[in-house]
């Protein structure tokens, strides 16, 4: 073979699975992830991130490393085309360093010059085993060999995956994996020598997706009511809570539309529940009327907004950070809100439970802003801790004469709920007095606006400061928010410059202006990295704090940032003006 895989000494291995939409890719991905994790490797999978749209082709990227990885890379070490067209789908990404492992009969004609094909007749071997459907398991077997892993100790993962199926199916799959492995083992094919070490710690970690992290966080936050309308890429949270609803006693309702969903959630909070909605841009557009209602009623509310590229239907299965300003300004009138944007799975979990606690404490809507990339990406992460979850409920019993909107210095009136005490809980979408009755009194109006807005200031007691990732100095400061963190951090690592630091915001509103200015004052050059076309967070930062940027790297083609590509862009940004 002209370019043996054994010659490569990468810091990580990047595998791309490519094929028709369906079970095939998922089976291979799932099995590989279980096996690699139990071997102690750090893992990342991302879906569709480099998809060149053609037919029903899907791709899943898997990265294997000795240290945590949580962003995609554009480099492909091993391509596994599971269907015809799989190679063409990504042919422009292939290099002489890529090894394609697949069937010559189906994909041979698609291989570009200079790219090696390792011919493994997946479907022929599967057919010999009894059925063509076993070809995915044959591929898993072959990949295990290529990655230098043992077969026998890992067979139980395959057995577990197919458990629940008839015994014969389990047996055939084990056989198929063995044959896939043997098809290369006997041929003298070189195996990959992974330069990086596995770690026993990884075995004890979690392996999950952003959707699962946010859902578990919601459970930790005491969520017991979710009403939503399905919309990609936000539905994972709704289905997770539905699947675990009965274990935790949660009310789960698929509403007729997003308007009903948010109004139900507000009604549930009014009656003492902890409610959330999950949606994407178009659904959030319908929810803005209700968001404004939550502002006026001073109702706690948790909104999970998983962004996808707009406007309108946009790119329904792709990713973007394009709804930040919409989340911040959506809803008529002026009222406070808090916006979180997790950058890691751990933040996805933590911010989701904090969303419930701060929504309840400050009686404001809290928006958790994620995106398709964050929802669908999967990696290993330390076990989520429940020790620091704020378990306090912030409603109170009432006595006769209770007034829901009693004036308070910090803007926060004790929140009673109906039926709990002798008081009456009166809430109104009209401007209201302290009892909750309609008023048009201009003095009362001013007092109520001030009271509501005061809560934003009060919420700074629980402000989550931006995190600075610094190896040496902050001469160059790369600023990002939400899901861009993983690619930005890795890009800076790739550059290996100790004069370049990353500043990441997981609370994107409200902001601490003095703190931001302090970070910026230490930097000679500041670069903004955002997944949208106009630099929305840059605009918010400038508006709130006055800081500005020397360079901006914006991505809005529907794909997530890839760390290697981003590293090159940051590098050229840093070169400018020198």
């Amino acid at each position, binding site marked *: 073979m002209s370019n043996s895989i054994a010659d490569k000494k990468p810091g990580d291995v990047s595998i791309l699975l490519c094929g028709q939409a369906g079970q095939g890719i998922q089976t291979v991905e799932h099995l590989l992830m279980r096996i690699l994790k139990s071997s102690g490797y750090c893992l990342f999978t991302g879906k569709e991130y480099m998809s060149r749209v053609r037919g029903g082709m899907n791709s899943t990227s898997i990265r294997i490393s000795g240290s945590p990885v949580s962003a995609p890379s554009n480099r492909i070490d091993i391509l596994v085309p599971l269907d015809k067209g799989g190679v063409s789908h990504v042919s422009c990404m292939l290099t002489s360093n890529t090894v394609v492992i697949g069937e010559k009969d189906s994909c041979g004609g698609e291989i570009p010059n200079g790219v090696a094909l390792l011919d493994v007749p997946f479907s022929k071997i599967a057919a010999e085993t009894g059925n063509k459907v076993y070809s995915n398991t044959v591929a898993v077997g072959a990949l295990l060999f290529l990655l230098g892993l043992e077969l026998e100790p890992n067979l139980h993962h395959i057995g577990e995956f197919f458990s629940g199926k008839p015994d014969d199916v389990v047996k055939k799959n084990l056989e198929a994996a063995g044959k896939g492995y043997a098809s290369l083992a006997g041929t003298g094919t070189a195996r990959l020598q992974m330069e990086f070490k596995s770690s026993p710690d990884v075995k*004890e*970690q*979690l*392996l999950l997706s952003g959707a*699962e992290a946010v859902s*578990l966080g919601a*459970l*930790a936050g*005491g969520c*017991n*009511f979710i*009403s939503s309308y399905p919309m990609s890429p936000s539905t994972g949270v709704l289905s997770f809570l539905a699947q675990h*609803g*009965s*274990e*935790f*006693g*949660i*009310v*789960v*309702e698929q*509403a*007729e539309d997003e*308007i*009903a*969903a948010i*109004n*139900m959630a*507000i*009604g*549930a909070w*009014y*009656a*003492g*529940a902890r*409610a959330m909605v999950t949606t994407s841009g178009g659904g959030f557009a319908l929810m803005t*009327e*209700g968001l404004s*209602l939550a502002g006026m009623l001073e109702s706690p509310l948790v909104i999970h907004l998983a962004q996808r590229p707009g406007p309108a239907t946009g790119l329904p299965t792709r990713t973007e950070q394009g709804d930040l300003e919409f989340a911040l300004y959506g809803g008529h009138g002026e009222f406070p809100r808090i916006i979180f944007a997790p950058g890691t799975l751990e933040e996805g979990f933590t911010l989701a439970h904090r969303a419930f606690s701060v929504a309840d404490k400050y009686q404001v809507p809290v928006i958790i802003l994620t995106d398709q990339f964050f929802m669908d990406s999967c990696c290993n992460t330390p*076990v989520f801790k*429940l020790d620091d*979850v704020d*378990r306090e*409920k912030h*409603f109170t019993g009432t006595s006769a004469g209770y007034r829901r909107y009693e004036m308070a210095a910090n803007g926060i009136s004790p929140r009673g*709920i*109906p*039926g*709990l*005490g002798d*008081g*009456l809980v*009166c*809430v*109104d*979408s*009209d401007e209201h007095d302290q009892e*909750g*009755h*309609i008023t048009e009194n201009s003095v009362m109006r001013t007092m109520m606006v001030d009271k509501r807005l005061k809560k934003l200031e009060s919420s700074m007691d629980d402000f989550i400061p931006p995190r600075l990732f610094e190896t040496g100095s902050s001469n160059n400061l790369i600023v990002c928010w939400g899901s861009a963190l993983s690619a930005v951090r890795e890009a800076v690592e790739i550059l290996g410059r100790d004069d370049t630091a990353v500043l990441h915001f997981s609370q994107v509103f409200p902001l601490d202006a003095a703190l931001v200015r302090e970070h910026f004052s230490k930097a000679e050059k500041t670069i903004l990295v955002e997944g949208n076309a106009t630099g929305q967070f840059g605009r918010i930062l400038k508006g709130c704090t006055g800081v500005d940027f020397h360079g901006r790297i914006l991505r809005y083609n529907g794909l997530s940032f890839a760390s290697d590509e981003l590293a090159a862009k940051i590098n050229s940004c840093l070169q400018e003006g020198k």
Partner: protein
Amino acid sequence: MELSDIAWCPGCGNYGILNVLKKTLDELGIQPEKMVLVSGIGQAAKIPHYFRTNFFNGLHGRALPPATAIKASNPSLTVIAESGDGDMYGEGGNHFIHTIRRNPGITNIVHNNMVYGLTKGQASPTSQAGFKTPIQVGGVFLEPFNPIAVALALDATFVARAFIGDQDRTREIFKKALMHKGYALVDVFQPCFTFNKINTFQWFREHTYYLDDTHDVHNRNQAFQKAVETDKLPLGVFYENTGRKTFEENIQETGKAVLPLHSQETDYGKLKDLILKFK
């Protein structure tokens, strides 16, 4: 609130509905602390402000979703969703349909005066054909919305119509609706003196009649026949179905929700186990 602060015109049918509702609740011994009056926006939707009770005066057209959620979160509360015809049947039409499908144990009282009051005299979904307004200058040509027929088509578990010109009969109907287990619709004819000069007390008296003992409230087909009559509009209970589970029962039995939600504690031991399943 002083009576003089009430935002309704003198002689408005809303006063009668307010009066009847108060009497009915009193008769049934429902405590103000143990009930929630949910409304939307419009003249009718101001009713909670003239009551001493818990209330949730939400958005135009959006009374039913929070009412459903309040009842689901705490079934021990008596929940009434009350608004006008524009709010419930127009802006909130989709919620009207799907709330009936859910069958929450709430009473839905709709003030139906066939006109928009708060926005000053435009057509409502129930305005009769030919009704002229500053917007519908040549007269309404849309088919009027028939809430009774729609509710029956969706197998609403209690469907009734009242006319506030007869407060005693209205009280009887309200009482039945409030005692019903499941969703109960009461569409209440109520003249608007200011903006509807056609559908007056006199008009309603002449164009309505009460269903008598020969009407079988458990016969949905018969109820449907009555619902589509237009010469004279029937009043009374059209239909009653006590066999269906309520939304609250379903979420507890099928969904295993633990109610009321305010006293629910998260099982962190169970959550820890669930988290560790991702190892």
